[in-house]
């Protein structure tokens, strides 16, 4: 697994050749993912997490067929529950997507259910399909409102407040996520200055 450089240099958020700060923050993992996905003809993209219409249109204008689906994180299983919790599943096709963009999603999955979610992500990705996940590393708070992310360029995103209920969160370690994404090889993890972590992974054949 490769770890990319932290984009914390003095010019990390500057427009090329200009003094004005570029909007949003750099997102090299997204850039890599889009670069690879748009080499395919009319790629199918699945957006998970709080959604931003501008991001949907951004991808659609570039030729992607974009599907928007609810990501309802599985609940924690109560220790004294008589029956096991309902299995996690997303109502989308199997092996259909070239790219899954999981905005602010995985950190709201309880650790004991993370593997289920990983298997579901593997199910919806085509062989060779790419998973791009974005989540916070911060230990605190233990609950927050998931943010939504506006794609303003292939390599830049703007974080925005989403109209969403507060949800419990778990800042999973990289190795826990790697284990959960069984069959999806993590290619790189990128750490941003605001404790946001990008993960780029590819489903094996």
């Amino acid at each position, binding site marked *: 697994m490769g770890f990319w450089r932290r984009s914390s240099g003095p010019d990390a958020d500057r427009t090329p050749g200009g003094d004005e700060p570029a909007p949003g923050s750099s997102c090299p993992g997204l850039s890599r993912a889009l670069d690879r996905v748009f080499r395919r003809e009319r790629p199918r993209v699945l957006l998970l997490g709080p959604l931003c*219409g501008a991001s*949907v249109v951004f991808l659609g204008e570039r030729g992607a*067929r*974009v599907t928007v689906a*609810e990501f*309802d994180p599985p609940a924690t299983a109560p220790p004294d529950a008589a029956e096991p919790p309902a299995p996690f599943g997303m*109502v989308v096709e199997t092996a259909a997507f070239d790219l899954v963009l999981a905005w602010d999603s995985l950190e709201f999955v309880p650790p004991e259910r993370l593997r289920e979610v990983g298997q579901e992500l593997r199910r919806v990705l085509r062989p060779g399909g790419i998973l791009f996940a974005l989540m916070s590393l911060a230990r605190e708070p233990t609950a927050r409102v998931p943010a939504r992310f506006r794609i303003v360029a292939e390599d830049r995103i703007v974080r925005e407040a989403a109209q969403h209920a507060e949800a419990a969160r778990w800042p999973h370690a990289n190795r826990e996520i790697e284990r959960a994404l069984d069959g999806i090889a993590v290619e790189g993890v990128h750490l941003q200055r605001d404790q946001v972590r990008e993960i780029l992974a590819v489903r094996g054949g």
Partner: protein
Amino acid sequence: MALFRTNRPTPDPEPEERTVYAPPAPRREEPVDKPTTAITAERGIRMEKIVHIGQSVEIKGELAGSEDLTIEGKVEGKITLRDHVLTIGPNGRIRGEVFAKSVMVIGEVDGNISAEDKVEVASTGSMKGDISAPRVVLSDGARFKGSIDMERKVQAGGVTVSKSVVNAPHPTVSGAASASPSAPVVKV
């Protein structure tokens, strides 16, 4: 030959014809099914029609027309307005497929929309189904669940038009026909 212009005032040009478009019809208690005409301010009558389906009207079946349409009521069935604009007003509820030149969703749509020009889901709008149009706007606060296809195709003669055939229905959340009615709609 006169070298200088005279200061003689030039005669006023013909008054320009100004068109006052009828605003969207306000919510009415009784159904309105007759066309509303937009009247010019000074001369004659402009023959553009805006058909309005009132809030208390419920239609089950296919709806087709060749003029702009605003729906405030409920429609269950296919709507076809080739070359014209369909507006689903704040009280409008559509369950079925929609084909039009341009579609504005302010109310609710449960079904696929295919537009030749543009689909816009307003901040109060709710859309569950697939959108196929070369231009799409999802306003902040709009609710959307489904797929978007913004592919264009070029006809012989170089005229670029939108794809007029809706995607093959997805056997899952993307297709309105297959999406569970109780499935949550994503807040955009």
